[in-house]
């Protein structure tokens, strides 16, 4: 019973194509995110949504467009894919944890995007 699930796990496509990655969380969290992890493992926040509303939009090309149809889903659509878009994309959700005293992020298993 996966908490944060994203599909597909692997995505291989040609430059110039448009693709989407889907994400769903069954944790009841209000906040969801998209992160990009490059080949050197650096994790970079791309977008953050709270209750279906965009609250964070880091410096990301406007070819990337998140869509949140409801609180449990946050999809990522990418237009005109470029070689530099190759990376692992992680969806996450979060809630405050009284045990740790701060927000706890729950990540999906990632989507490996390869642009040829």
């Amino acid at each position, binding site marked *: 019973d996966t908490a*944060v699930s994203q599909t597909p796990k692997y995505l291989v496509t040609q430059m110039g194509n448009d693709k989407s990655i889907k994400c769903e969380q069954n944790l009841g969290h209000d*906040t969801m*995110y998209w992160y990009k992890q490059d080949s*050197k*493992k*650096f*994790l970079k*926040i791309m977008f*953050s949504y709270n209750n279906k509303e965009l609250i*964070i939009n880091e410096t990301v090309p406007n070819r990337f467009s998140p869509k949140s149809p409801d609180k449990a889903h946050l999809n990522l659509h990418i237009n005109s894919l470029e070689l530099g878009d190759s990376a692992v994309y*992680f969806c*996450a959700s*979060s809630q*405050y*944890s009284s045990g*740790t*005293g*701060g*927000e*706890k*992020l*729950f*990540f*999906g*298993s*990632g989507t490996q995007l390869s642009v040829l």
Partner: protein
Amino acid sequence: QQQVKQSPQSLIVQKGGISIINCAYENTAFDYFPWYQQFPGKGPALLIAIRPDVSEKKEGRFTISFNKSAKQFSLHIMDSQPGDSATYFCAAKLGGSYIPTFGRGTSLIVHP
């Protein structure tokens, strides 16, 4: 601008040894410091976290040491095991925000 500096980039430890990963920050407005553990093919998962009002937090073999005056914090893994082999990320969060800034990660390999 790298707000959280993590070192070393990679670490090799023998089974039973102590693994130490260090992080440093500049912004004194950070108020929450989590560590995430990531296994190959998986997303990061919260391992342990600390707030700046305490100097140490221990959970099993994992301990965070926090030095507020030096603006540094570190993760110690005691009795390191091959199953601890993973990438570890330190992070820091600004007060009023809930999005952490991640360090660049440390790849830990524990040899049996």
